[in-house]
Each structure stands twice: as structure tokens, then as C-alpha cells.
């Protein structure tokens, strides 16, 4: 491909190609976000009949209230105007008013966001590290018992419904069956009334089971991906060169094979964030964790359309942004790409 190194990338330093790469990815992200907006708009206009009736169905609502809601939805306006209004509002941070909480959607979201970040962030770090460590070990011991156990366990846990695992953990470790005592709270983020360090400990106590659940169903994917990437890498010729130079086997693996194998692994971890979001929603629901997922569940049952729509936008946008971030960072590690 590159006949001679061009002046644009001498020595692999970031040069003019990288800003172009960034611009391309950012533009792509913008298009994706726009697509999310459009999808969100049409999704909630798909409802046959009157969305407001759909939302308030079965509950006693006065005609005046119905009219208010309709105005808020802009249902009396022509469709294109509804769309521009909607886009304009979304881009300025107005996502409507929650029907069940009677509060701005954005407020409810910002309230719940830190809690979700705490849960997701903790779980993400743990399952990524665990997955990579175990995947690496598994690849080194390829074909042997340790590898097969590891892989088997990962596959089994990966196939479990996350909400079911959560329920089981609650039953066994919170409520306690038979002689087993309840070690952990059954739900929520805190037991109330604590301050400072005691508060932090309390939150951590509540955090254990949700994090364990999330880690259990997600680490398997990371493990399998790491293992597969490493096994692919281990057949490479440059590893023979490294061995021929006199490096010990474990150095060859650590210094040459592993870093190269981690490159596709990291990418895949980010691509799988969508599945993590689903897991977070379910885990927060089951453990009554006051985060975005729990909010989503509450909104679904009503259905609180403005809130559902707002959360839909937030979830989709979050994943898109994380993926864009990964795309931007990747060339810094792999000199073959984007420079």
C-alpha cells in the first residue's frame, strides 16, 4: 500500500491524517445522533390513534389536561412543524415534561444519571479487567482443562438472563433461604439517614449485588473476545521472530502478542456497550436502583411517553458517543490506522 513512507506520517507521528480522521468520525457521530433524533420522533408518532389517550388510557383525566398534553406534544400542528419543534427543543435540552412525575424530563434524567454512572462505571471496569485477565489466561492454556472451564463458564453466564440472575442473588443473598442469612440489602441505593463516610459505605454495600450481577453476565463476552483475539495473534510470524531473538516465551506473549491482541478486543468491548446498556436497565429494575434504567422501567409501565422518549434518546446517544470516543482513541494505539 504505502510504497515509501510519505512525509505525512514519518515515524508514525500524528500528522495531518489524524485530524481528518477525527473530523470524519465526529461527522459520522453527528449523523448517527441525528438519526436517533429522527427515530425517536417517528417512534412515538407510530402509535395508532391519539398518543395522549394512549398515555393516559384508563386514568381519569379532565379534558383540560388532555388539551394541555396535546399542546405539549404539538399534536395540533402539522407534522413537519412538530418535527422541527421537537428537534429544536431536544438540541436545547428540553425533552418535555414527564407525565407521571410532572417534572421536566431533563431534570429526572440528570437526577438519575450519577447513580447509573456509578453502577455502570464500576461494573464496566471490573468486567473488562476480569474478562481480559481470564481471557488471556485461557488463551495461554488453550485446550487444557483450565481453558475449557473458563470458556464454558463464560458461555453459561453469558446465556443467563441478567434479571433472573439478579433475582436469584436477591433471594439467596439478601432475603436468605433456609439457614443462609441476608447479607445484602434487597434493593435501592441506600438505607437512608447516613452521612459522609457511613453514607459511602452504605452505598457500597448496596452496590455489591447489582455490580456482581452485571459483571457476571458481561465478563463472558470480554473473555471470549480476548481469548479469540489472542489465539488469532498467537499464530503470527512476528512471534517466531521474537522467539528467535532469544526472548522467553512469557515475554514474547506479554510484550508482543498481548498488546496486539488487545487492539481488536478494546474495539469490540466498546461495540458491545449496547448490550451493557440493556443489562443496566434490567439490573436497575430488579434491584430498584435509582438510575436511568430504573426510571425507564417506571416510565414503561405507565407509559410515560415523554420520559420514555427522552430516555431513549439519552441511551442511544450515550452509546454512540462512547463508540465515537473509541474510534478517536484507537489510532493512538494502532499506528496502522487513521494516520
Amino acid at each position, binding site marked *: 500500500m504505502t510504497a515509501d513512507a510519505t512525509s505525512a506520517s514519518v515515524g508514525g507521528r500524528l500528522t495531518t491524517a489524524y485530524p481528518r480522521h477525527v473530523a470524519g468520525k465526529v461527522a459520522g457521530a453527528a449523523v448517527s445522533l441525528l438519526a436517533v433524533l429522527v427515530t425517536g420522533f417517528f417512534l412515538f408518532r407510530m402509535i395508532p390513534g391519539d398518543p395522549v389517550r394512549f398515555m393516559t388510557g384508563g386514568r381519569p383525566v379532565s379534558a383540560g389536561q388532555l388539551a394541555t398534553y396535546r399542546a405539549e406534544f404539538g399534536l395540533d400542528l402539522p407534522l413537519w412543524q412538530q418535527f422541527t419543534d421537537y428537534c429544536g427543543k431536544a438540541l436545547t435540552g428540553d425533552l418535555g415534561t414527564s407525565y407521571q412525575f410532572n417534572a421536566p424530563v431533563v431534570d429526572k434524567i440528570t437526577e438519575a444519571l450519577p447513580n447509573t454512572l456509578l453502577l455502570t462505571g464500576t461494573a464496566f471496569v471490573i468486567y473488562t479487567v476480569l474478562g481480559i485477565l481470564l481471557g488471556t489466561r485461557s488463551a495461554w492454556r488453550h485446550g487444557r482443562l483450565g481453558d475449557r472451564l473458563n470458556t464454558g463458564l463464560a458461555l453459561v453466564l453469558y446465556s443467563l438472563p441478567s434479571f433472573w440472575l439478579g433475582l436469584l442473588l436477591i433471594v439467596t443473598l439478601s432475603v436468605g433461604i433456609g439457614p443462609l442469612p441476608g447479607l445484602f440489602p434487597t434493593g435501592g441505593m441506600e438505607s437512608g439517614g447516613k452521612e459522609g463516610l457511613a453514607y459511602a459505605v452504605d452505598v457500597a454495600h448496596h452496590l455489591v449485588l447489582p455490580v456482581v450481577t452485571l459483571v457476571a453476565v458481561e465478563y463472558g463476552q470480554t473473555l471470549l473476545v480476548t481469548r479469540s483475539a489472542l489465539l488469532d495473534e498467537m499464530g503470527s510470524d512476528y512471534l517466531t521472530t521474537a522467539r*528467535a531473538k*532469544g526472548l522467553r516465551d512469557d515475554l514474547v506473549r506479554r510484550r508482543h502478542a498481548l498488546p496486539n491482541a488487545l487492539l481488536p478486543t478494546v474495539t469490540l468491548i466498546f461495540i458491545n456497550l449496547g448490550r451493557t446498556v440493556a443489562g443496566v436497565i434490567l439490573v436497575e429494575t430488579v434491584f430498584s436502583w435509582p438510575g436511568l434504567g430504573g426510571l425507564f422501567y417506571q416510565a414503561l409501565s405507565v407509559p410515560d411517553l415523554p420520559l420514555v422518549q427522552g430516555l431513549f434518546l439519552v441511551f442511544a446517544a450515550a452509546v454512540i458517543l462512547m463508540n465515537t470516543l473509541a474510534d478517536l482513541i484507537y489510532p493512538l494505539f494502532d*499506528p496502522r490506522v487513521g494516520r
Partner: protein
Amino acid sequence: MTLLDVRGLTVTYPGGANAVRGVDLRLDAGRKLGVAGESGCGKSTLALALLRLLPAGTRVGGEILLDGEDVLAMKWGRVRAVRWAGASIVFQGAMHSLNPVRRVGDQIAEPVLLHRRATPAGARRRTGELLEQVGLPAARGSAYPHELSGGQRQRVMIAMALACGPRLIVADEPTTALDVMIQAQILRLIERLVTDQDVGLIMISHDLAVLAGTCDRLAVMYAGRVVEEGPARQVYEAARHPYARALSAAFPRIGDPASRFAPRGLPGDPPDPSALPSGCAFHPRCPVVLDSCAVQDQALRPAGPHRHAACVRVTPEPSDPGEPGYPPPATSDGPGSPRSTPAEGPGSPPQLTMTRGPMPGAGATPGEPGPQPGAAAEGPGTRRHAGADGPGAEAGGTGGGVEEGFRRP
């Protein structure tokens, strides 16, 4: 003192494939040995075996004496110390043999840091020296492999191989997949370095012409065995073994009208190492096969001074003078090794090899002057035209070597 002495090397892969079935080779410091053959004949396996780089589970037998020490009997710590510092390999396919996400300078410095315990600054200095030796500017060290051209990558591989001052370099297909011009440059570079630093070179290739032009001695492998070995020019121009003949005839000799009509190539494919034919492994494809060939395997037998071929049709010339018994299966031996005089005679075709200019015309090549200890005068062998065959025809010549006139500035 023999630098490398391989005795009875056998390699069997975990699946049961007999990749190498008893190979003997010798090489002295400063000499160049070419190993030729088609894919699957075991030449790359041979290269990997020399430094015990074969995958776990591979059974390796025989002895590999590197400066007197048997590599196969060494403890792993010693093997790792010998790797690269005693002998190094220039792998084929430099794009895949280099780590794609590390700078080439770091990769060259890696063995220096490991074996010479140099400081990072010292390693950087050495890397710069090495790059300049191979004709690249020292600044190239900060490039990644994908930023270099094929020829530059190959130079990097060579620089890397020289990093710890090894006594032996094994070049596995160093010029395959390179343009002809680059190929020429690389070969000249290898030759120069080998001579300057007095290292032994084993060059592996399927390109007989390249090997004939660069190496002192040539060994042709087939199905895990050496089927012919001797002085490079002789084996190239006048091979005794049918396979070596066919291999050499497969290369067009421009300017020789006869070679255009000579039968070329062989039907069939090289045998599967896990399912070798009985008797002589070459017999299914041999153009001059006898009934006994399917039954009886052939060992190397003398086919001239310091030449061997493993064919039943090879009979030593009755007038082969004064060779002390069975000459050892050998590459060149001793210092000041005798150079060959070229085959002379009418109608000697000018040879255009891929890397050299046209050879001076028939009979005009001066022989390399020099002592020829114990070597006899040329045998009365009849001249052979390229492409012609027939048992008993042999080119004269003693020892191995490359004619002076063959070297081009």
C-alpha cells in the same frame, strides 16, 4: 573449524509429517551455502530447527553442532542465549515477520538490549549503525513496518539479524516477493556483509538461479532429504540428480536456443510429508525412473569431487582422481577453499541469471587462482549443454566457488 555441522537431522511434526528425514550439512565461517527446493521440501523447517524454533510437540532428532555445541542438547537458557547472538535468521515475508505496531528501531534494538545488556542509548546507537550498514538512514528506525517499502523492510530484517554479531545467518527466502532490481541490491548487500563480517550464510530459496549466483555450495532438497549437493555452479549447470536437473532446467536461460525446446518442469506435486512414496520419494515424478526406485531408497553417493547426489543412476566417474574415500557430506572445507574453474567447451551458453549481468562467453571465464590442495585437475567429463541430460556427463571442477569474473561491480 566448522561453524555449523548438522548430522542426521530429522524433524517430525506433531501430526506425523516427516518434514526432514536425515539431513547432513556443513558450513564454515565466511562460506555461503544455498538450500534449494520447492515448497514443502523441508527447507524452512530446517531453518527453524537450527534454533529450536519449531512448535512444541515436534520431534527433532540428530545433532546440530554450532561451533561444536549441540543445539538440540542445550538447556533452554543456553538456547536463548545462542539465539540471535550465535546464529540469527532473516525470515521471509518481512511484513509479517515484524511486529506491526512497534517501530522498527525498537525491534532491532530488542535483541541488543537482551543479549548485550546495553543501555537504551547504546542500543539506539547500535541500531543506527546497523541501519546505515544496510543502507538505510538511521532516522528510519522510528518508522513502523507498514510505512516502509518491501525492500526497506528486508533491509531492516537484515540489520536486525546482524544486531548481535552472530557467527551464522540463515536467510529464508530473503528476496522472494521483491522486485528484481531490489532483489539484486539485497543479494549484494548480504554478500558484502557476509564477507566483511566473516559470518557463515545459509540461504534458502526456491530460486536456483539466485542461489547459484550467490552461494559457494548448493544443496537441493526434496521431500525432507538432500538429493544433491556440491559446488553451486556445478549443481546449477550440470546437476546429476534428476530432480535437481529438472529444477535447474525450469529456469530459462536466455540466449540459449536449445533450452527453449528442452522439456521443462515436472508433472505432479511434491509429496505430502505425512504420506511419502515408498522407496525413493522422487520416483513417482522421475523422468528416468527404474523399477528398483519404488522399492529402494537412495542415500547420497559421490557424484564428483565434493559432490553428492542421491540417485541410483549416479555412478562416480572411474577416473575421478585421488578423492580420499568417501568425502564427507560437505559444504566447502578449509580456508582458501578451491574455487572452481568454469565448465569450458564449445557451445557453452551464456547464462543470464536473475541477479548478474550476462556471463562472459564460452570458456572466457577466468578461474579463480588459488591453492587447490589435494584437488585434482579437471576430470575428462564431457561438456553438457544446459537442458541436456544423460548420466555420466559432468562438468569438471573441483571444490566450490564463484568465479571472479562472475562478480559484477
